[in-house]
């Protein structure tokens, strides 16, 4: 999005926290949170897959709950907190899920990976030791076309074991 005036209603003023950092910007009222992150904030780790809430590639955490960012308006995050894949690693290194995805070869093309990582973190943050069925159930809103899910499930199990060890 350039600074050239876009047609339509005026932009909305948003103050929000993204990956722990304060952000303030103007956003077109009809712009999705997905595009807001990608085009205004400049975080392109969150991916577009379908724009109708059926693939989970755009999954982010909004005030601690995972959501499809294509079905949230950027204007809605005023005063809220958003976590994206870019916020998972810390100064100490990768999040255990990121490390497990690498070690277990849980990604092929990698386009769904940010969504799976954020969704998986949403699970393990609340349920440290889910069984395989629960993992598969929780991740059913995230489509992967490359892996057949097996190695993704193994990676989540591995991260779960390491985080609770």
């Amino acid at each position, binding site marked *: 999005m350039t600074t050239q005036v*876009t*047609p*339509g*209603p*005026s932009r*909305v003023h948003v103050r929000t926290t993204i990956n722990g950092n304060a952000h303030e910007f103007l956003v*077109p*009222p*009809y712009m*999705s949170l997905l595009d807001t992150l990608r085009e205004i904030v400049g975080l392109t780790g969150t991916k577009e897959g379908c*724009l*109708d*809430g*059926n693939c*989970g590639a755009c*999954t982010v955490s*909004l005030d601690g*709950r*995972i*959501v*499809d960012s*294509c*079905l*949230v*308006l950027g*204007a*809605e995050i005023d005063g809220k907190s958003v976590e994206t894949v870019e916020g998972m690693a810390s100064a100490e290194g990768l999040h255990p899920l990121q490390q497990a995805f690498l070690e277990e070869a849980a990604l092929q093309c990698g386009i769904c990976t940010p969504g799976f990582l954020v*969704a998986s973190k*949403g699970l393990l943050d609340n349920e440290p030791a889910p069984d395989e069925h629960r993992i598969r*159930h*929780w991740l*059913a*809103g*995230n489509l992967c076309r490359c892996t057949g899910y097996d190695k993704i499930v193994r990676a989540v199990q591995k991260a779960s074991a390491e985080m609770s060890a």
Partner: protein
Amino acid sequence: MHPFAYEAPGSIDEAVALLDKHGDRARPIAGGTDVLVQARANRWDLDAIVDVKNIPELTQISHYPDGSVSIGAAVPCYQIYEDQKIRDSFPGIIDAVEMIGGIQIQSRASLGGNLCNSSPSADGICPLIAYNAVCHIAGPGGDDDHRDVAVEDFCTGPGSNVLGRGEILVSLVLPNPGANFGAAYERFIPRNEMDIAVAGAGVSVKLNDAGDTFEAARVALAAVAPVPLVVPAAEAALVGNPVNDATIEAAAAAAADAASPISDMRGTIDQRKHLSGVLARRMINKAVERARG
């Protein structure tokens, strides 16, 4: 998508004023999981989206001393299924809110939105009918402009309902179902998640104290008619009759008979009629099981 403004009123009065002002060119959103998709598909050209999540009455769950519960129209699915009292007293509602979309959708989508979207295949509507739920609706005419409509009377066609210009669904009230009552909802989908019902059945039964006779029943079917379909013939086949396979089969047959579906990419007429009978039977059995505790 027509560029729309974003409004986030903090009160019902402000919300209904906005909706009244824009008429057909505004829609309320709670989770936005239907409205934003439809706006993007150019189903409507909207001038404004009215986000109702800042309105207290629409975002609360209230349990009353008489055992009834009021669920704000914008309460997301996860808050409903994480509410232990609703889990204990209204398991048929839990059946539905745990299956709408996936986890991401359940973070946002609301039962009220599911109802206002008024899709015949909605998972939330049949169980609301089974619990005899009532819609509290506010209108643009000030404090006195309120009305109650039974959920079963709410939808008027695919995507249409009784809400008039400026009206907003505030909450859904589920009366205390009382003793010896059970309800359940199930749908058929070819996958295990993330699908729209090919057909669904929401059922409730009230048994006598001995648990061997149906005293009351509700049978509602999803995705087999222009609106969620209440089947009085199936209810009549149960009420007053003994709880046994013959009674339940008769009610299931009535459900299959009442279904008047279309064929589309999700299923055929024959498949949906057949599923209506199967699901009605299974849900009657499950409701009986729950009624017997």
